[in-house]
């Protein structure tokens, strides 16, 4: 099995998407292909466990040191803010002591944090892998003929943090091209979370022009109102010029347009 196909099958297998026959065949091929025996198990445990992984809690020792450092930092800050008032109250001899204390605390924390940082780096790598895998699963599911599966894919996209460009693009492709109104509506909801990304905002404004279902047009117009997005006004004007526009929806568009201006 070529690597790409293998990965696709693996994702399907792990997502429980395979029919029993395909699963049996896959397992047979897996056994025959002399693939490292632990690999499937590794992938599986990766998918199952990573979400449940927690960052190791800092121990009491680290907390104490941190508090010492914090106190010192606070004092330093107070000194920096009002040097004239603070200096006479603090004997000069304490300053070198504080400096030494700071260095020692820093060294201790450095030693203590050393292994943690390695672990954290490994965790970050693992998380990136899982994100990549979830992205693959999501993209694969968006191509499925079943609307329920595509809804599931949009739901998965919400779990991927932060979502990469591939996910944003796939959500836009869904919003502008999915045959099912419900799937398109959930894509609007999923994209609406990225109000802070200019590209997403612009994309959603443009999307108003290509919709043919009133439910999606209304959802987009509502979003524009919530965002006070004035660039949507020309798009709403276009919608208002539609011949077959229903009376109630027309009134809603006019209301939104008036409130945007």
């Amino acid at each position, binding site marked *: 099995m070529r690597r790409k196909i293998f990965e696709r099958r693996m994702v399907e297998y792990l997502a429980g998407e395979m029919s029993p026959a395909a699963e049996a065949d896959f397992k047979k091929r897996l056994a025959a292909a002399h693939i490292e025996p632990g690999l499937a198990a590794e992938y599986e445990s990766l998918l199952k466990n990573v979400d449940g992984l927690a960052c190791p809690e800092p121990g009491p020792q680290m907390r104490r040191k941190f508090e010492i450092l914090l106190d010192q930092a606070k004092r330093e800050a107070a000194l920096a803010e009002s040097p004239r008032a603070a200096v006479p109250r603090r004997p000069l001899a304490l300053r070198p002591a504080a400096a030494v204390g700071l260095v020692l605390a820093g060294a201790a924390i450095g030693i203590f944090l050393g292994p943690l940082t390695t672990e954290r780096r490994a965790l970050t790598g693992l998380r990136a892998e899982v994100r990549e895998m979830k992205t693959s699963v999501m993209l694969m599911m968006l191509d499925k003929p*079943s*609307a329920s599966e595509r*809804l*599931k894919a949009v*739901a998965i996209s919400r779990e991927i943090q932060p979502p990469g460009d591939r996910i944003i693009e796939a959500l836009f492709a869904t919003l502008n091209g999915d045959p*099912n109104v419900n799937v398109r509506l959930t894509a609007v909801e999923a994209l609406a979370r990225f109000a802070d990304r200019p590209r997403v905002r612009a994309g959603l404004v443009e999307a108003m022009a290509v919709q043919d279902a*009133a439910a999606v047009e209304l959802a987009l117009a*509502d979003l524009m109102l919530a965002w006070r997005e004035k660039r949507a006004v020309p798009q709403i004007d276009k919608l208002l010029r539609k011949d077959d526009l229903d009376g109630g929806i027309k009134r*809603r568009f006019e209301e939104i347009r008036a409130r945007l201006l």
Partner: protein
Amino acid sequence: MRRFPYWIALLGAAFGGLAGQEIPADRIVVSLARPDRGGTLIIQHDKGSISVVGSEASAVTVEAFRRGLSSPEAGDPDARGMKLIAGPPTGLRAVEADGTVTVTTDGRGQTLDLVVKVPRDFSLKLSTVHNGRIDVENVSGEMEITNSNGDIRLEKVAGSAVLSTFDGRITARFVEVTPGAPMAFTSVYGRIDVAFPADARMTVRMKSDNGLIYSDFGLKAEVPQTRRKGLTVPGGQSLSSRDWITARLNGGGPETLLKSFDGNIYLRKTK
């Protein structure tokens, strides 16, 4: 006894309605190679209703009925009191491939009502545009149904559903839901009335721009700050808001979306 004539009239009307549909204009029986494996029914209809009923049969039976030519509502007074016996061809076809049965018609402008019997475990992908409603009864599977201008009604169904209509009403009574399957129900103008088993685990997100939202699930609604005060109705509670309301049934699960622009939303327990 004063009501007796009223009942007679009702029975007469019901019989009259049925009489017009007694003999199908066309009928096709599609046998399935592996009925135990379930299957999928695909109908993209243009004009008329679709009714799908699950049965113990192992074949798919499709019947097409011409509608309205002799009925008084159709405005053909010359046909009153007569029976429809022939018309243009219905163009009814049913093709089976790998468990998927695709039904098409070419009614040349006629309104054709389709009545389909399927094995109980069957998925459905149905749509109609004009002049009809879509009814499904006693079927278990994945249901994707769009009726642009009419009602959608699901009775005693199991599985999952993704339904949408523009100005029709949606009614769905689930006896069982597929765990892990998201669902969605949207209507622009119609009300949405869905019932799920009391133990269904799902996260329901609901929004009606101009309507009210009712539930007898005793749910804990995570209502956003803009919530308006709702009304209380006997045997249930009412929530109202212009924002999305999220409710976790039995701890939550896959997302179920209920969205209407103008209609009320009723989320109830299957009785």
